[in-house]
């Protein structure tokens, strides 16, 4: 449905029609926030080639389909979590099926004082005042048109509040399961994480979907980390093969805060994860790492923007991709150093392994630096498996496919070795092995 300016704004009518009946419709600040989201999205439309950071990831398919807003719907059979080690880990678990909280699947007993884990929908109904100072505060909707769309629709998601000084005793596991029916589904989850000063938490996210059926998961996470607080954040993006997964994460770090993020992307037909990290307080530490595994006609896009506002902060990004078939990888990363951010230490590295001649990577690293006393770097490599190493392995009797596999596992293994939570590392490795088994034919017998 193009408007006068010729761009597409699918979903907008639905959001507007919905605005009177949505939970919290009568809460003024919330209605205003949703309205602002609708109007920014209305102005911008679905991002496309004219948008600087959307050149490589085409969303036109979204405009052609009719998507129905997911609302939990009838009880569906929920597939088992593919992450065995994490599933067995003692954790607080909050589960969403088709976009809505499923209290029956959650494990949220005995939460310690100072920790709140709840559904956003419940919070809107019961305690909107607690949301007002934070919801929508951590991100610039003009920079993220689909986060604006999410804002227009938002009604459920996870709220994680940790009071100052509290160390959450177990990891928090956010599980999103999507099982679409005949009609393609649209999900607009909104997650909110606020750590008070010196608080500590570990958050694991699993995004999984059933094998069939199209859906559009457009999620937004606002994460705010207080002074000296620490968040370890691990994400599995393993959506169904016909899914479009668009995630926007807005990170705000106060002085001496630490964020350690690791993302595994391998699901969806299109997967795009954009992280905007703003280092507001001095001496903050931000790590954004990840691996992506693409095959078939997948497009997997990692977009980062790290803004050093305060002095003496460190940021480090290492992304590694393995692309087979006709898959396309996108890495766009920008480090922006403001004039006051002296002694910034900012590094970024993108490495891609192309296993097939038709696989492709588009890389766009950027440094924009306005302070003079900084250490910043970026680097990008893309290439095939090292022929010398391959020959060396084969010259010892290791079959070609097994040798390829050994080298690919080594390539991603380096990144996985830095993950601190062993269960997460184990599940990431298992996923990589399964992916290789499914996509690389291994022939050990001759």
């Amino acid at each position, binding site marked *: 449905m193009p408007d006068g300016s010729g761009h597409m704004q699918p979903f907008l009518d639905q959001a507007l029609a919905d605005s009177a009946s949505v939970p919290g419709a009568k809460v003024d600040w919330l209605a205003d926030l949703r309205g602002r989201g609708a109007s920014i999205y209305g102005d911008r439309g679905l991002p496309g080639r004219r948008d600087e950071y959307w050149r490589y990831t085409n969303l036109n398919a979204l405009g052609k389909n009719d998507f129905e807003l997911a609302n939990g719907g009838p009880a569906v059979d929920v597939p088992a979590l593919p992450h065995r080690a994490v599933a067995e880990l003692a954790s607080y678990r909050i589960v969403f099926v088709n976009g809505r909280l499923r209290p029956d699947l959650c494990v949220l007993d005995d939460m310690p004082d100072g920790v709140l884990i709840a559904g956003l929908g419940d919070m809107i109904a019961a305690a909107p005042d607690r949301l007002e100072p934070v919801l929508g505060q951590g991100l610039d909707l003009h920079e993220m048109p689909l986060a604006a769309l999410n804002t227009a629709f938002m009604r459920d998601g996870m709220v994680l509040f940790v009071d100052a000084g509290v160390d959450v005793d177990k990891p928090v596991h956010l599980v999103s399961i999507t099982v679409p029916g005949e009609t393609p589904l649209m999900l607009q989850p909104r997650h909110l994480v606020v750590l008070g000063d010196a608080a500590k938490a570990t958050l694991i996210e699993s995004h999984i979907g059933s094998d069939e059926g199209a859906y559009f998961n457009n999620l937004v996470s606002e994460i705010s980390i207080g002074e000296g607080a620490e968040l370890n954040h691990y994400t599995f993006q393993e959506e169904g093969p016909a899914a479009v997964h668009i995630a926007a994460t807005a990170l705000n770090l106060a002085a001496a805060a630490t964020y350690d993020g690791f993302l595994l992307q391998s699901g969806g037909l299109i997967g795009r994860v954009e992280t905007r990290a703003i280092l507001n307080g001095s001496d903050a530490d931000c790590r954004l790492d990840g691996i992506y595994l693409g095959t078939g006609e997948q497009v997997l896009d990692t977009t980062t923007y790290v803004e050093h506002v305060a002095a003496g902060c460190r940021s480090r990004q290492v992304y590694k991709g393995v692309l087979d078939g006709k898959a396309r990888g996108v890495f766009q990363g920008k480090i922006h150093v403001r004039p006051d951010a002296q002694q910034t230490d900012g590094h970024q590295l993108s490495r891609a392994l192309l296993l097939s001649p038709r696989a492709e990577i588009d890389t766009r690293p950027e440094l924009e630096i306005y302070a003079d006393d900084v250490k910043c770097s970026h680097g990008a490599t893309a290439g095939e498996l090292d022929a010398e*190493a391959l020959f060396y392995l084969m*010259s010892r009797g290791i*079959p*070609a496919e*097994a040798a390829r596999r050994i*080298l690919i*596992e*080594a390539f991603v*293994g380096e990144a996985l070795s830095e993950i601190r939570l062993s269960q997460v590392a184990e599940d990431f490795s298992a996923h990589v092995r399964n992916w290789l088994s499914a996509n690389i034919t291994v022939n050990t017998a*001759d």
Partner: protein
Amino acid sequence: MALLEIRNLHATVDDKPILNGVDLTIDAGEVHAIMGPNGSGKSTLSYVLSGRDGYEVTDGEVIYDGKDLLEMAADERAREGVFLAFQYPVEIPGVAGLTFLKTAANALRTHRGEGELDAMDFLKFVRGKAEALDINDEMLKRAVNEGFSGGEKKRMEILQMAVLEPKLAILDETDSGLDIDALKVVSDGVNALRGPERGMLLITHYQRLLDYIVPDRVHVLAHGRIVKSGDKDLALELEAKGYGEFMEAAE
């Protein structure tokens, strides 16, 4: 029947002729040395025999153990018992040396119809061989060749050979870059593997190695052809006279 028979072997790299008619026969139980100046085609011969991509055989044939060697892929040749100790062993970050060696050993065992060794048995087996080569556990634990000195890499090559127990071992300048103590260790390792079933092709630039590993035959390679063959005394003659006259003979 000869273990290895190379007949009139011609090979090119990027259309450039490097081997120009190599003839060489090695019987089981024999150690042959190939000597020759830099650039004469020694490494090329070793790569053609082990099946590296990019080397095109334009004429001739190689019969190994009664089979057409050139028909086989590199990994197949290795499983059939061909081993190359590289002149420049390859560093492979992120691949644990022990895991690599175990994968290789088990691929060979499976091929021979023997059962695979589990991690514990394999470690014991390797440790036994490593000790004789002055290779400690710390070296075994590292990634393949990563951060090793030149001499350490050469010792690791010999360890791999000892573990994989090839029928035909090709050692490409295993002596280069070794000090006298390391040369002794490596030579002892190689000599320990000499046996009636096994053939060896020692490629070297210097006569020195042949004091420690005494060959049955010595060949001089120049301009991609064997221009002279003899017994171990040929190496001494070469050492005294240099390659000059052989080079001229090959022109």
